[in-house]
Protein backbone atom coordinates (compact mmCIF):
# COMPACT_ATOMS: atom_id res chain seq x y z
CA UNK A 1 0.00 0.00 0.00
CA UNK A 2 2.85 2.38 0.87
CA UNK A 3 4.46 1.63 -2.50
CA UNK A 4 1.25 2.52 -4.35
CA UNK A 5 0.93 5.76 -2.38
CA UNK A 6 4.54 6.60 -3.33
CA UNK A 7 3.84 5.83 -7.00
CA UNK A 8 0.72 8.01 -6.96
CA UNK A 9 2.75 10.87 -5.47
CA UNK A 10 5.36 10.37 -8.21
CA UNK A 11 2.66 10.40 -10.90
CA UNK A 12 1.23 13.63 -9.47
CA UNK A 13 4.68 15.26 -9.35
CA UNK A 14 5.58 14.19 -12.89
CA UNK A 15 2.17 15.28 -14.16
CA UNK A 16 2.65 18.71 -12.59
CA UNK A 17 6.17 19.06 -14.01
CA UNK A 18 4.97 18.04 -17.48
CA UNK A 19 2.20 20.64 -17.34
CA UNK A 20 4.70 23.34 -16.34
CA UNK A 21 7.01 22.32 -19.19
CA UNK A 22 4.07 22.27 -21.63
CA UNK A 23 2.95 25.72 -20.51
CA UNK A 24 6.49 27.14 -20.84
CA UNK A 25 6.91 25.55 -24.30
CA UNK A 26 3.54 26.95 -25.43
CA UNK A 27 4.46 30.41 -24.18
CA UNK A 28 7.84 30.29 -25.93
CA UNK A 29 6.22 29.15 -29.20
CA UNK A 30 3.63 31.92 -28.99
CA UNK A 31 6.31 34.59 -28.36
CA UNK A 32 8.56 33.32 -31.16
CA UNK A 33 5.67 33.39 -33.64
CA UNK A 34 5.50 37.19 -33.39
CA UNK A 35 8.01 37.80 -36.19
CA UNK A 36 8.73 36.07 -39.48
CA UNK A 37 12.10 35.49 -41.16
CA UNK A 38 15.14 33.82 -39.59
CA UNK A 39 15.99 36.28 -36.84
CA UNK A 40 14.40 38.10 -33.92
CA UNK A 41 11.24 36.53 -32.48
CA UNK A 42 10.89 33.87 -35.19
CA UNK A 43 10.61 30.08 -35.03
CA UNK A 44 13.99 29.46 -36.77
CA UNK A 45 15.59 31.78 -34.20
CA UNK A 46 13.97 29.73 -31.41
CA UNK A 47 15.28 26.52 -32.94
CA UNK A 48 18.77 28.07 -33.07
CA UNK A 49 18.49 29.28 -29.48
CA UNK A 50 17.54 25.78 -28.34
CA UNK A 51 20.32 24.32 -30.51
CA UNK A 52 17.87 21.97 -32.17
CA UNK A 53 20.10 21.32 -35.24
CA UNK A 54 22.91 20.13 -32.92
CA UNK A 55 20.43 17.96 -31.02
CA UNK A 56 19.15 16.45 -34.26
CA UNK A 57 22.70 15.59 -35.34
CA UNK A 58 23.49 14.10 -31.95
CA UNK A 59 20.31 11.94 -31.88
CA UNK A 60 20.90 10.95 -35.49
CA UNK A 61 24.41 9.76 -34.59
CA UNK A 62 23.20 7.83 -31.53
CA UNK A 63 20.44 6.07 -33.44
CA UNK A 64 22.91 5.24 -36.23
CA UNK A 65 25.24 3.64 -33.67
CA UNK A 66 22.35 1.59 -32.26
CA UNK A 67 21.40 0.30 -35.70
CA UNK A 68 24.95 -0.73 -36.59
CA UNK A 69 25.77 -4.42 -36.48
CA UNK A 70 28.07 -5.49 -33.68
CA UNK A 71 27.82 -6.14 -29.94
CA UNK A 72 24.70 -5.01 -28.10
CA UNK A 73 25.02 -1.56 -26.52
CA UNK A 74 24.56 -2.62 -22.90
CA UNK A 75 24.06 0.93 -21.60
CA UNK A 76 21.33 1.70 -24.14
CA UNK A 77 19.68 -1.64 -23.35
CA UNK A 78 19.71 -0.95 -19.61
CA UNK A 79 18.32 2.56 -20.11
CA UNK A 80 15.56 1.17 -22.34
CA UNK A 81 14.61 -1.50 -19.80
CA UNK A 82 14.72 1.07 -17.00
CA UNK A 83 12.36 3.36 -18.89
CA UNK A 84 9.96 0.48 -19.53
CA UNK A 85 10.01 -0.37 -15.79
CA UNK A 86 9.42 3.29 -14.91
CA UNK A 87 6.50 3.51 -17.35
CA UNK A 88 4.92 0.35 -15.89
CA UNK A 89 5.37 1.69 -12.36
CA UNK A 90 3.72 4.98 -13.33
CA UNK A 91 0.82 3.10 -14.92
CA UNK A 92 0.44 1.19 -11.65
CA UNK A 93 0.39 4.51 -9.82
CA UNK A 94 -2.38 5.76 -12.09
CA UNK A 95 -4.63 2.70 -12.06
CA UNK A 96 -4.15 1.02 -8.68
CA UNK A 97 -6.33 2.73 -6.06
CA UNK A 98 -4.41 4.12 -3.08
CA UNK A 99 -7.29 3.63 -0.73
CA UNK A 100 -7.51 0.13 0.63
CA UNK A 101 -10.88 -1.57 0.23
CA UNK A 102 -12.40 -2.17 3.64
CA UNK A 103 -14.51 -5.14 4.59
CA UNK A 104 -18.04 -3.83 5.07
CA UNK A 105 -20.79 -5.69 6.82
CA UNK A 106 -23.49 -5.19 4.20
CA UNK A 107 -23.35 -4.47 0.44
CA UNK A 108 -22.70 -0.79 -0.06
CA UNK A 109 -23.08 -0.17 3.66
CA UNK A 110 -20.50 2.29 4.88
CA UNK A 111 -21.88 2.19 8.41
CA UNK A 112 -19.56 -0.47 9.79
CA UNK A 113 -16.36 -1.60 8.16
CA UNK A 114 -12.93 -2.86 9.10
CA UNK A 115 -9.54 -2.98 7.52
CA UNK A 116 -8.40 -6.40 6.34
CA UNK A 117 -5.36 -6.35 8.58
CA UNK A 118 -7.41 -5.68 11.70
CA UNK A 119 -9.76 -8.56 10.93
CA UNK A 120 -6.84 -10.86 10.11
CA UNK A 121 -5.22 -10.05 13.45
CA UNK A 122 -8.38 -10.97 15.29
CA UNK A 123 -8.88 -14.12 13.21
CA UNK A 124 -5.37 -15.20 14.03
CA UNK A 125 -5.84 -14.55 17.74
CA UNK A 126 -9.11 -16.50 17.73
CA UNK A 127 -7.60 -19.42 15.79
CA UNK A 128 -4.65 -19.63 18.16
CA UNK A 129 -7.08 -19.99 21.08
CA UNK A 130 -8.27 -23.35 19.73
CA UNK A 131 -7.12 -26.51 21.51
CA UNK A 132 -4.28 -28.33 19.80
CA UNK A 133 -3.22 -25.39 17.63
CA UNK A 134 0.40 -24.26 17.90
CA UNK A 135 0.27 -21.29 15.56
CA UNK A 136 -1.93 -19.74 12.90
CA UNK A 137 -1.84 -17.26 10.09
CA UNK A 138 -4.88 -15.48 8.71
CA UNK A 139 -5.72 -13.49 5.62
CA UNK A 140 -8.91 -11.62 4.85
CA UNK A 141 -10.14 -10.93 1.34
CA UNK A 142 -13.07 -8.53 0.96
CA UNK A 143 -15.87 -9.31 -1.47
CA UNK A 144 -17.34 -6.63 -3.70
CA UNK A 145 -20.81 -7.01 -2.21
CA UNK A 146 -19.88 -6.83 1.48
CA UNK A 147 -18.33 -9.52 3.62
CA UNK A 148 -15.59 -11.68 2.15
CA UNK A 149 -13.40 -14.64 3.00
CA UNK A 150 -11.13 -15.33 5.93
CA UNK A 151 -8.43 -17.87 5.20
CA UNK A 152 -6.70 -19.44 8.17
CA UNK A 153 -3.71 -21.72 7.96
CA UNK A 154 -2.92 -23.32 11.28
CA UNK A 155 -0.36 -25.77 12.67
CA UNK A 156 -1.73 -28.52 14.93
CA UNK A 157 -0.15 -31.05 17.26
CA UNK A 158 0.16 -34.73 16.32
CA UNK A 159 -2.51 -35.64 18.86
CA UNK A 160 -5.05 -33.37 17.16
CA UNK A 161 -7.00 -34.61 14.17
CA UNK A 162 -7.24 -32.31 11.18
CA UNK A 163 -11.04 -32.33 11.05
CA UNK A 164 -11.41 -31.65 14.75
CA UNK A 165 -8.86 -28.82 14.61
CA UNK A 166 -10.67 -27.25 11.67
CA UNK A 167 -14.02 -27.44 13.44
CA UNK A 168 -12.62 -25.88 16.60
CA UNK A 169 -11.05 -23.02 14.65
CA UNK A 170 -14.27 -22.39 12.73
CA UNK A 171 -16.15 -22.38 16.03
CA UNK A 172 -13.71 -19.82 17.48
CA UNK A 173 -13.96 -17.71 14.34
CA UNK A 174 -17.77 -17.69 14.37
CA UNK A 175 -18.24 -14.35 16.21
CA UNK A 176 -15.98 -12.65 13.68
CA UNK A 177 -17.08 -14.48 10.55
CA UNK A 178 -20.78 -14.12 11.35
CA UNK A 179 -20.47 -10.45 12.32
CA UNK A 180 -18.61 -9.41 9.18
CA UNK A 181 -20.12 -12.04 6.85
CA UNK A 182 -16.73 -13.65 6.29
CA UNK A 183 -16.71 -17.17 4.88
CA UNK A 184 -14.08 -19.14 6.80
CA UNK A 185 -11.65 -21.37 4.94
CA UNK A 186 -9.43 -23.25 7.37
CA UNK A 187 -6.46 -25.45 6.55
CA UNK A 188 -4.36 -27.21 9.12
CA UNK A 189 -1.10 -29.07 8.97
CA UNK A 190 1.08 -30.92 11.43
CA UNK A 191 3.32 -28.59 13.35
CA UNK A 192 7.09 -28.92 13.20
CA UNK A 193 8.75 -30.93 15.96
CA UNK A 194 9.89 -27.80 17.77
CA UNK A 195 6.42 -26.29 18.01
CA UNK A 196 4.52 -26.36 21.27
CA UNK A 197 0.90 -25.75 22.05
CA UNK A 198 0.41 -22.13 23.04
Amino acid at each position, binding site marked *: *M*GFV*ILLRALVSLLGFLLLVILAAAGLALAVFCIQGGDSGLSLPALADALRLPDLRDSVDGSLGDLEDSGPVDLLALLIGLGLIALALALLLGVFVP*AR*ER*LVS*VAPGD*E*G*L*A*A*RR*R*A*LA*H*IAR*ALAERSDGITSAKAKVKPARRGGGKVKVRADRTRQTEAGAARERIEHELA*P*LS*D*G*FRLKPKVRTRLADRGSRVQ
Partner: protein
Amino acid sequence: MPPKPRSGAVSPRTELARVALEAAVGVDGVAAGNAGPTGQYVTSWGGVRLAGVVATAQGAGCFSVDLFLTAELVPLHELGERLPVVVGEAVTEAGLGDRLGNVSVSFLDVEHPLGWAS
Protein backbone atom coordinates in the same frame (compact mmCIF):
# COMPACT_ATOMS: atom_id res chain seq x y z
CA MET B 1 -12.52 18.39 30.41
CA PRO B 2 -12.41 19.16 26.66
CA PRO B 3 -9.12 20.46 25.23
CA LYS B 4 -8.76 24.15 24.40
CA PRO B 5 -8.48 25.18 20.76
CA ARG B 6 -5.04 26.59 19.94
CA SER B 7 -6.18 29.02 17.30
CA GLY B 8 -9.16 30.19 15.31
CA ALA B 9 -12.86 29.68 15.82
CA VAL B 10 -14.35 26.24 16.24
CA SER B 11 -17.11 25.47 13.75
CA PRO B 12 -20.11 23.23 14.52
CA ARG B 13 -18.61 20.68 12.12
CA THR B 14 -15.31 20.40 13.95
CA GLU B 15 -17.00 20.55 17.37
CA LEU B 16 -19.22 17.67 16.29
CA ALA B 17 -16.12 15.74 15.21
CA ARG B 18 -14.43 16.35 18.57
CA VAL B 19 -17.43 15.30 20.62
CA ALA B 20 -17.94 12.17 18.49
CA LEU B 21 -14.28 11.14 18.69
CA GLU B 22 -14.08 11.72 22.44
CA ALA B 23 -17.21 9.67 22.98
CA ALA B 24 -15.94 6.86 20.76
CA VAL B 25 -12.51 6.70 22.38
CA GLY B 26 -14.15 6.56 25.80
CA VAL B 27 -15.93 3.31 24.95
CA ASP B 28 -14.42 0.09 26.31
CA GLY B 29 -12.73 -1.77 23.48
CA VAL B 30 -11.64 1.33 21.56
CA ALA B 31 -7.92 1.97 21.90
CA ALA B 32 -7.59 5.23 19.97
CA GLY B 33 -8.49 7.19 16.87
CA ASN B 34 -6.51 6.15 13.80
CA ALA B 35 -5.47 8.73 11.19
CA GLY B 36 -5.06 6.03 8.50
CA PRO B 37 -2.02 4.83 6.57
CA THR B 38 -1.38 8.25 5.02
CA GLY B 39 -2.83 10.38 7.80
CA GLN B 40 -5.89 11.32 5.76
CA TYR B 41 -8.50 10.76 8.46
CA VAL B 42 -7.97 13.86 10.58
CA THR B 43 -9.94 16.96 11.50
CA SER B 44 -8.37 20.19 12.64
CA TRP B 45 -10.25 21.48 15.68
CA GLY B 46 -9.06 25.02 16.36
CA GLY B 47 -5.50 24.03 15.44
CA VAL B 48 -5.66 20.76 17.37
CA ARG B 49 -5.29 17.67 15.18
CA LEU B 50 -8.02 15.11 15.85
CA ALA B 51 -6.82 11.78 14.46
CA GLY B 52 -9.48 9.30 13.39
CA VAL B 53 -12.51 11.45 12.66
CA VAL B 54 -13.87 13.15 9.57
CA ALA B 55 -17.07 15.22 9.63
CA THR B 56 -18.64 16.02 6.27
CA ALA B 57 -21.55 18.30 5.39
CA GLN B 58 -24.62 16.27 4.54
CA GLY B 59 -27.11 19.00 3.72
CA ALA B 60 -29.74 20.77 5.85
CA GLY B 61 -27.09 21.80 8.36
CA CYS B 62 -26.24 18.20 9.22
CA PHE B 63 -22.85 16.54 9.16
CA SER B 64 -21.99 12.90 8.75
CA VAL B 65 -19.31 11.61 11.10
CA ASP B 66 -16.85 8.95 9.96
CA LEU B 67 -14.83 7.38 12.74
CA PHE B 68 -11.58 5.50 12.04
CA LEU B 69 -10.43 3.60 15.08
CA THR B 70 -7.91 1.23 16.53
CA ALA B 71 -9.74 -1.34 18.59
CA GLU B 72 -8.64 -3.61 21.37
CA LEU B 73 -8.93 -7.36 20.98
CA VAL B 74 -12.73 -7.45 21.40
CA PRO B 75 -15.69 -8.55 19.24
CA LEU B 76 -15.64 -5.84 16.61
CA HIS B 77 -19.16 -6.27 15.31
CA GLU B 78 -20.80 -5.66 18.69
CA LEU B 79 -18.47 -2.74 19.35
CA GLY B 80 -19.22 -1.27 15.93
CA GLU B 81 -22.95 -1.46 16.56
CA ARG B 82 -22.65 0.15 20.00
CA LEU B 83 -20.51 3.09 18.91
CA PRO B 84 -23.07 5.06 16.84
CA VAL B 85 -25.48 4.89 19.80
CA VAL B 86 -22.85 6.20 22.23
CA VAL B 87 -21.80 8.93 19.79
CA GLY B 88 -25.42 9.94 19.26
CA GLU B 89 -25.98 10.27 23.00
CA ALA B 90 -22.80 12.31 23.50
CA VAL B 91 -23.63 14.64 20.62
CA THR B 92 -27.16 15.19 21.93
CA GLU B 93 -25.78 15.91 25.38
CA ALA B 94 -23.46 18.49 23.83
CA GLY B 95 -26.46 20.22 22.25
CA LEU B 96 -25.53 19.24 18.69
CA GLY B 97 -28.03 16.45 18.21
CA ASP B 98 -29.83 18.25 15.38
CA ARG B 99 -26.51 18.54 13.49
CA LEU B 100 -25.64 14.85 13.47
CA GLY B 101 -26.19 12.92 10.24
CA ASN B 102 -24.94 9.42 9.50
CA VAL B 103 -22.30 7.88 11.73
CA SER B 104 -19.94 5.31 10.23
CA VAL B 105 -17.31 3.27 12.04
CA SER B 106 -14.21 1.74 10.44
CA PHE B 107 -11.73 -0.32 12.41
CA LEU B 108 -8.33 0.20 10.86
CA ASP B 109 -6.23 -1.70 13.34
CA VAL B 110 -6.37 -3.90 16.38
CA GLU B 111 -4.15 -3.59 19.40
CA HIS B 112 -2.83 -6.77 20.97
CA PRO B 113 -1.84 -6.62 24.64
CA LEU B 114 1.43 -8.40 23.83
CA GLY B 115 1.95 -6.87 20.40
CA TRP B 116 1.58 -8.79 17.11
CA ALA B 117 4.36 -11.13 16.10
CA SER B 118 5.20 -10.71 12.44
